[in-house]
């Protein structure tokens, strides 16, 4: 099956065409085609995985390449490169996508563009799979852009509302900004590696010194710009929370399997380039680790103040992607890939869970949820499993992968990243506790009657909960299969990724930090719960009022102090008004005058003059040129023929 892995992206692509043209005439409106094709793709991916694992060690990647056309000696081709990383991605993408397809039959039931939605889902998956199996950077970029296009289509699925379509446009344009970097990076590397797009070749050249370090740094930096856009790294993370405007299954797909992990995958795939380009082996500080670390903290802080449940999860994804990029930045390749693997399961679970909540209460706001534990037991349990896995509690999936990232930061000499990682772990645990508290604890605060979702939505949740619990064990100490399966090898280069021994102290430490996060958040929010209780029970109301007024101690102190304080305050006020204010006002006036002069001379005359001049000249140029545009086709044609005639005469005369 490994030799024919190219079939896997092809199946959803075919299903896209079938759904698009015949979907609306089928009994289930095209959903069955999508589910069947993804099911087939998933089975084939599993076969690939079995075959890969069964290979003799060292496992050699399968590389097939067909020339599409040759131009000037440059081979433009399509191909596939299948190694452990590819197989892992194939399994994850097809599995999550299958779950999302099944879930969508329930969630999108009765939607006005149901068939179109499934067609776009298929294309989305196919594009991601195309990116995953690509053996050259050109093909990778085609998949990359297709993924961007599909996310645009799906985020703006309900485009009738202006907010949604602008969110889609924002996502598209933000990622496109990064893509400029990706494209120039690919071009730089293409010329640096002797006119070659081949990924294996690029990695090999980068690791053996075939490309100069300066060029490599530029190439890696430019590629990383693309990664920042796609994987929502600070400061290009702004599109991801807005992308929540799309239907929830799409959010799950974007966050777990396709789109945002494409950036992480790109770095992992071209790791040779990044590894030498950013001199990761030397330790110290590099762009990738710093951006990743900043993203972890900034996004986690934002997750605390969101009321929209999907936005909490969105910022959480941004933060977790920061972890992955940081891990790649410190050289912990396996840890990053492993975190991508585990994160896909529990984040898909959380998003589908939040979709189930939204489906039941018809709002995204957590302030209108509450007490849903009783009404929606399946959603509650699966959402809790996802949250605990995300928070990194032993022995769920997130614990093992997060621990490996921290271990990498510690062992490879990045102490700052270790601290950032621990802070991130604390905050992750705390904001997930807050979210779970607001959604499930207390009384129901919304309107209407929440109900458990239909089986088509509940079953994907149950199924996803299994890997969310167990996936981490694959690389647990004593088992440790995962790193052997995916390990990154470049032919002809000695193994350069170090593996670190499991460190029980660090693992225990990170667990304690996460538990502290949960404890802190629950202490805070359960005290909040007491306040709510205090407004309803008479005795408690008195107690509550006392607590709110800080036991009336302030009143007591005020009475005593006022006698002494008042004359003192009066004297202080006089000093303040006459002496201090004089100084402050003087400084202020001087600053104001300087500013006035600057404004009159520099801003009004020089800068405005230049700006207005540019505008005026464009305006006048336009009004002259508009006379040419008469709207008459034949006049244009006459100009065209006339110009060609003049050119032809020139050609005859001068040759």
């Amino acid at each position, binding site marked *: 099956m490994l030799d024919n892995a190219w079939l896997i992206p092809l199946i959803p692509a075919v299903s896209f065409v079938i759904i698009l043209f015949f979907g609306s005439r089928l009994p289930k409106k095209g959903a069955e085609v999508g589910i069947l094709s993804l099911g087939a793709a998933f089975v084939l991916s599993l076969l690939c995985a079995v075959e890969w694992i069964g290979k003799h060690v060292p496992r050699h990647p399968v590389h097939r390449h067909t020339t599409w056309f040759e131009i000037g000696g440059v081979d433009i081709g399509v191909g596939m490169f299948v190694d452990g990383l590819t197989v892992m991605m194939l399994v994850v993408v097809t599995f999550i996508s299958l779950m999302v397809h099944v879930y969508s039959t329930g969630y999108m039931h009765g939607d006005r563009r149901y068939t179109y939605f499934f067609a776009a889902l298929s294309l989305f998956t196919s594009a991601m799979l195309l990116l995953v199996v690509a053996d050259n950077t050109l093909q990778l970029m085609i998949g990359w852009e297709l993924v961007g296009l599909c996310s645009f289509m799906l985020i703006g699925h309900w485009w009738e509302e202006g907010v949604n379509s602008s969110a889609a446009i924002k996502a598209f344009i933000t990622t496109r900004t990064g893509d400029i970097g990706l494209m120039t990076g690919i071009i730089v590397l293409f010329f640096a590696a002797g006119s070659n797009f081949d990924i294996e070749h690029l990695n090999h050249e980068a690791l053996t010194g075939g490309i100069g370090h300066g060029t490599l740094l530029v190439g890696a930096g430019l590629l990383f710009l693309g990664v920042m856009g796609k994987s929502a790294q600070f400061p290009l993370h702004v599109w991801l929370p807005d992308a929540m405007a799309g239907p929830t299954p799409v959010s799950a797909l974007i966050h777990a399997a396709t789109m945002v992990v494409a950036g992480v995958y790109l770095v992992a795939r071209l790791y040779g380039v990044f590894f030498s380009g950013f001199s990761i082996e030397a330790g110290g500080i590099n762009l990738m680790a710093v951006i990743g670390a900043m993203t972890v903290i900034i996004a986690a802080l934002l997750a605390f103040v969101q009321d929209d449940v999907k936005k909490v999860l969105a910022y959480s994804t941004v933060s977790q992607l920061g972890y992955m990029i940081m891990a790649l930045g410190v050289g912990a390749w396996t840890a990053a890939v492993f975190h991508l693997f585990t994160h896909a399961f529990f984040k898909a679970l959380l998003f589908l869970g939040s979709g189930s909540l939204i489906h039941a209460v018809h709002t995204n706001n957590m302030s209108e949820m509450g007490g849903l534990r009783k009404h929606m037991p399946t959603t509650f349990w699966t959402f809790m499993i996802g949250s605990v896995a995300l928070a990194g509690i032993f022995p769920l999936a997130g614990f093992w992968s997060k621990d490996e990232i921290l271990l990498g930061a510690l062992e490879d000499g990045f102490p700052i990243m270790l601290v950032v990682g621990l802070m991130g772990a604390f905050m992750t645990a705390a904001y997930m506790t807050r979210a779970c508290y607001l959604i499930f604890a207390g009384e129901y605060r919304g309107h209407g009657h929440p109900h458990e979702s239909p089986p088509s939505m509940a079953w994907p949740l149950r199924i996803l909960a299994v890997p969310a619990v167990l996936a981490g064990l694959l690389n647990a100490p004593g088992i440790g299969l995962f790193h052997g399966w995916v390990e990154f090898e470049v032919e002809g280069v000695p193994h350069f990724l170090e593996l670190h021994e499991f460190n029980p102290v660090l693992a225990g430490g990170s667990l304690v930090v996460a538990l502290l996060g949960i404890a802190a958040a629950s202490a805070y929010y359960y005290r909040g719960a007491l306040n709510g209780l205090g407004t309803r029970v008479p005795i408690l109301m008195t107690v509550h009022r006392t607590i709110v007024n800080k036991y009336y101690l302030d009143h007591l102190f005020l009475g005593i102090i006022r006698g002494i304080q008042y004359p003192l305050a009066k004297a202080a006020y006089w000093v303040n008004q006459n002496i201090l204010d004089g100084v402050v006002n003087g400084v202020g006036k001087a600053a104001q005058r300087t500013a006035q002069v600057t404004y009159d001379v520099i801003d009004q005359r020089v800068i405005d003059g230049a700006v207005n001049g540019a505008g005026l000249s464009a305006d006048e140029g336009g009004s002259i*040129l*508009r*006379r*040419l*545009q*008469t*709207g*008459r*086709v*034949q006049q244009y*044609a*006459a100009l065209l*023929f006339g110009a060609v005639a003049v050119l032809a005469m020139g050609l005859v005369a001068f040759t």
Partner: protein
Amino acid sequence: MYLNQFLLLAAVLFCLGVYGVLSRKNAVLVLMSIELMLNAVNINLIAFGAFRDNVIGQVFSLFVIAIAAAEVGVGLAIVLLIFRNRADIDLDELAQMKG
């Protein structure tokens, strides 16, 4: 048989086409004139191909014919839509794109 004869024929045909495109008011006739120009080019291609014993000229003209068919399809569809909207296909009246 001289190459010049063919080239002359093609040139005459092409000039007729240009004249038609520039002077006709009716959009359908303009489209037909474009076809004339394309066929003049085809004659050139085949003539050169035949005189230099090269099959590429014919291959290219086949491509041109295929693409011309598509182009006429699109063009006539546009003309049809314009006619439905305005009940008129006079190109001089179609000047909404005026700057």
